[in-house]
């Protein structure tokens, strides 16, 4: 009898011990793990993720926001208890994040914040005071999801849509103008631009115009800058700003079979001809003006031709890579802050802080995210 009782007690103890020995055994990594009130995830859980090379998701809520951490087992080296809880707070222009964890996690973790609204910006930046600490991608079709790869922890930061920051920059530019009045920004509007709305000194489309303009330009999407004709652009060299310029042809790497064999050696192994570089430009200059100067300064070959029907320069080749060098649908395209303007680069007048990317397409823009060409 005593043996039976001791056996039962031993089993009870064993089961209780196993069941209560922390989260290690209990956690099902295939399901999202809801963060507890204290937000702490024990080392044993991270060990399990690491050992199983799993992908784990931790979910939490703060106010009206839901957030989610994604942790890849392959990223974990040294593990410890980590507090994954956040405090999220809506601000005038963005969202403030307060991390509960004071030290770096020791591994990169992917934070996704689910908003209840749709942000129009494609990207955003998290700022700690004035310092940019994380770059944020904005996705989602109905409501937005902000994705941040968190490597280093700051006590708190504010995520601002990139458009907002540009607006701030523009506003500050505007206040500078107040002290130094300038009437160099002509931005003339033709008749076909009559249905546009004005914001700062740039003219943006209201999306109501349904017809092509006289230079064969399809209607400019709502909220995007209207073209400024080169003959109307007056450059003010007393006012300089900066923008980011890059040139890349990585799409060719996926289409090497279509590439002119003589051009093979011109393609950089990573496809980057000019890595994102901050460049100075003068008020009133176009994307084409700056491209010419950058290529000259950096010793990058550039060939263009003037196309009267489009009232713009046409970029035939950069770095000796020309249109049609990689198939019938190949050539150079440009995008500014993620948007591919549907007009020539001579007609895009730059603003402070804009990000210009020249990209080689092998599929009429489809492979670089330009949806209007095809």
């Amino acid at each position, binding site marked *: 009898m005593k043996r039976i009782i001791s056996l*039962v007690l031993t089993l009870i103890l064993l089961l209780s011990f196993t*069941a209560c020995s922390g989260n290690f055994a209990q956690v099902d990594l295939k399901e999202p793990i809801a963060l507890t009130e204290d937000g702490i995830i024990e080392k044993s859980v991270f060990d399990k993720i690491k050992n199983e090379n799993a992908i784990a998701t931790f979910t939490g809520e703060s106010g009206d926001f839901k957030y989610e951490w*994604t942790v*890849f087992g392959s990223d974990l080296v040294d593990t410890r208890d980590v507090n994954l809880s956040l405090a999220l707070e809506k601000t005038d222009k963005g969202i403030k994040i307060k991390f509960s964890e004071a030290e770096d996690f020791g591994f990169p973790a*992917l934070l996704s914040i689910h908003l209840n609204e749709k942000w129009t910006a494609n990207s955003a930046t998290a700022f700690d005071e004035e310092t940019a600490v994380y770059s944020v991608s904005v996705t989602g079709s109905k409501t937005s999801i902000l*994705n941040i790869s968190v490597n280093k922890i700051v006590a708190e930061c504010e995520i601002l849509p990139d458009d907002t920051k540009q607006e701030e920059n523009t506003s500050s530019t505007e206040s500078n103008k107040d002290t130094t009045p300038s009437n160099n920004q002509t931005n003339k509007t033709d008749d076909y631009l009559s249905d546009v709305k004005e914001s700062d000194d740039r003219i943006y489309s209201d999306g109501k115009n349904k017809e092509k303009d006289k230079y064969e330009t399809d209607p400019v999407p709502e909220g995007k800058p209207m073209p400024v004709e080169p003959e109307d652009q007056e450059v003010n060299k007393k006012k300089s700003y900066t923008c980011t310029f890059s040139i890349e042809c990585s799409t060719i*790497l*996926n289409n090497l079979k279509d590439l002119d064999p003589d051009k093979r050696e011109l393609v950089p192994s990573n496809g980057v001809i000019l890595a994102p570089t901050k460049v100075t430009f003068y008020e009133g200059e176009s994307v084409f003006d700056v491209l010419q100067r950058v290529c000259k300064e950096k010793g990058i070959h550039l060939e263009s031709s003037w196309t009267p029907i489009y009232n713009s320069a046409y970029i035939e080749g950069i770095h000796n890579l020309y249109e049609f060098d990689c198939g019938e649908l190949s050539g150079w395209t440009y995008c500014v802050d993620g948007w591919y303007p549907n007009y020539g680069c001579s007609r895009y007048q730059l603003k402070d802080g804009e990000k210009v990317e020249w990209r080689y397409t092998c599929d009429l823009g489809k*492979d670089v995210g330009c949806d209007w060409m095809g």
Partner: protein
Amino acid sequence: MSKRSMNPKTKKKLIIGISAGVLVLLLILFLLLFKGCSHSIFGGTPTLSIETPQKISKTDTQEIMLDVTISSFGDAIYPAASMSISFDSSRLEFIGIEEGNVFIRNDEGEIPQKLPEWSCNPEQCNKSGKINIMYLDTTGGKNAFSKELLSTDENVVLRLKFRLRGSVRSGDICDLIFDDAVFAASDETESLAMTTDTLKVRNGKIVVGD
């Protein structure tokens, strides 16, 4: 007055009985804790998930396969299903779908099963940045989904195939977001739909590493 004592045999039986009961209770508790089984034991709202794959290298030209899984079905049979998934077509090329391991009933409506033929137009999906996938049983319910055909392991409804475009960069995160998902039953009240919260969804993502 003599003290009345229990028969030793009865006492023994009682102890064995109590011990067995305690053991059974503990075993149930143990199972619940280990399997996190409130879901599988007690049912719960079916969840349709896009499983996030391991990080992809930006130079990886291989196809990326993402499983779309279902946790459970209700008691009805589901002769039609559809889902709409948003993705960033500037960074991902949607190649098409592949069959999973969730079967439908055969032409006689019996359990020996066959795989469903989902329809989808990848070219259109890449243009719109939205993957629209549909299954329609044209036999009037014979080739329907039902819970008897689910396995105990991972139930993969279908697989999504992608390739990275040349425009991706290290650190890019491409979300795959359910805009809509429905498993339609012949009785509409038994349908599983994202919009009515009778079907939960979990979005997936493709994370581009170095």
